[in-house]
């Protein structure tokens, strides 16, 4: 049996942290080469830990890990890129947390996915640069779905490939996108989307993120897209993600979060 190296280098964006034991935390990281991996950082919650600050959720860092019996152990961490504006703004933080959770839910462990990493990275950069969190979120949802193998067909009918008439059209996640009038009965659950919303969906699919966030989307279209895409994601993940709800509650259009967890009362 070949002996494995006892330490290895890795880099990635920290997706989440879970505190364990007295002062340890387990971190789940998503890297361009390794995909999703996790490890434990011992004593990181004590003030003397040299790794704290470099091992924070939503930070892109370079690590040294030691192979452990059950869990690999972080032994060094150094920030490559941090996104300070995200940590200082509740709405941006909620949006970034949502992207991290989407990546977490749409990926398995140890499966490299460089395009998905790139998407997460540019999305965090856009949030940090002051782009509208709502626009960034819609772009991330559309491209995340595509990269996870659930690309929405928006150019023609997802069921029969027929041309779509310029009218309100059903977006049916089970069928894989927009469906024409004829295919509607067998398309399953979905939501009717307006012509302007369809135009935005088409543009998002081919634009870069900076191009897309440069587009002004009227409030009611943004709202419509938010609900339609949330429905598609819920369909594929079987539930609304807690971060999706938080991001929605904290976006400027929604009511104040004056009743935390009101729907669970």
């Amino acid at each position, binding site marked *: 049996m070949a002996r494995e190296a006892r330490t290895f280098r890795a880099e990635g964006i920290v997706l989440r942290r879970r505190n364990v034991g007295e002062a340890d935390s387990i971190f789940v990281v998503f890297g361009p080469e390794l995909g999703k991996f996790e490890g434990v950082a011992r004593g990181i919650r004590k003030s003397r830990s040299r790794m704290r600050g470099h091992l924070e959720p939503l930070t892109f860092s370079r690590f040294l890990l030691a192979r452990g019996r059950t869990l690999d152990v972080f032994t060094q961490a150094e920030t490559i890129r941090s996104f300070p504006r995200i940590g200082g703004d509740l709405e941006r933080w909620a949006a970034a947390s949502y992207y991290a959770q989407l990546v977490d839910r749409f990926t398995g462990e140890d499966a490299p996915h460089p395009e998905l990493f790139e998407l997460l990275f540019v999305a965090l950069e856009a949030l940090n640069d002051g782009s509208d969190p709502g626009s960034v979120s819609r772009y991330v949802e559309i491209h995340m779905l595509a990269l996870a193998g659930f690309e929405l067909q928006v150019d023609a009918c997802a069921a029969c490939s027929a041309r779509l008439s310029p009218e309100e059209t059903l977006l049916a996640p089970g069928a894989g996108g927009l469906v024409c009038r004829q295919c509607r009965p067998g398309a399953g659950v979905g939501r009717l989307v307006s012509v302007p919303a369809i135009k935005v969906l088409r543009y998002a699919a081919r634009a870069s993120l900076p191009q897309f966030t440069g587009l002004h989307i009227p409030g009611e279209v943004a709202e419509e897209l938010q609900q339609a895409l949330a429905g598609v994601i819920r369909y594929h993940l079987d539930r609304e993600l807690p971060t999706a709800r938080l991001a929605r509650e904290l976006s400027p259009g929604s009511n104040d979060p004056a009743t*935390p967890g009101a729907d669970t009362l």
Partner: protein
Amino acid sequence: MATGGTPEAIARLVEQFNRLPGIGPKSAQRLAYHILRVGDEEAEALANAVLEVKRRIRLCSVCCYITEQDPCGYCTDDRRDQSLVCVVEQALDISAIERSGGYNGVYHVLHGVLNPMDGVGPEDLRFRELLARVQGGSVSEVIMATNPSLEGEATAMYAAKLLGPLGVRVTRLARGLPSGADLEYADDVTLLRALEGRQAV
């Protein structure tokens, strides 16, 4: 089917210990075999102490601190400034602040920090109780003493957004605390300075 494996009663105890924070499978096994060796009296005392805690200790209906009497000693102490509320992540943090000796207000324990990526949203924390307290009108300032981590900062911002419209002053511990480290481990001097230099969120 367990043939010649660990007796079921021991396996069950190992499993229970293994669920405790900071106890891995190895330690759980060691603890279980230790219990097996101790006298009946000692084992019973342990079992009773566990049950007693669950029976007698509850959360204070005002501040959510752990207490035997409701409301707790802090909430009924009239030498304390009841209009000044320091919000902490966990009950243990109160001991750290009390140790520093520089605080004479009362507390509110959230029992966690916003960490939606790990499944903890606002509804899982004691924000509802905090909101009710502030709506009651007797609170003039809320000091957010959550840890200086990304999650701690977000929790403080969330509280400011939640309570701001009610006209209460919401402040945050000064940046004396090193980022990422837990309050529990801060030294008294640093903590005192952080309390004195608190700023509006």
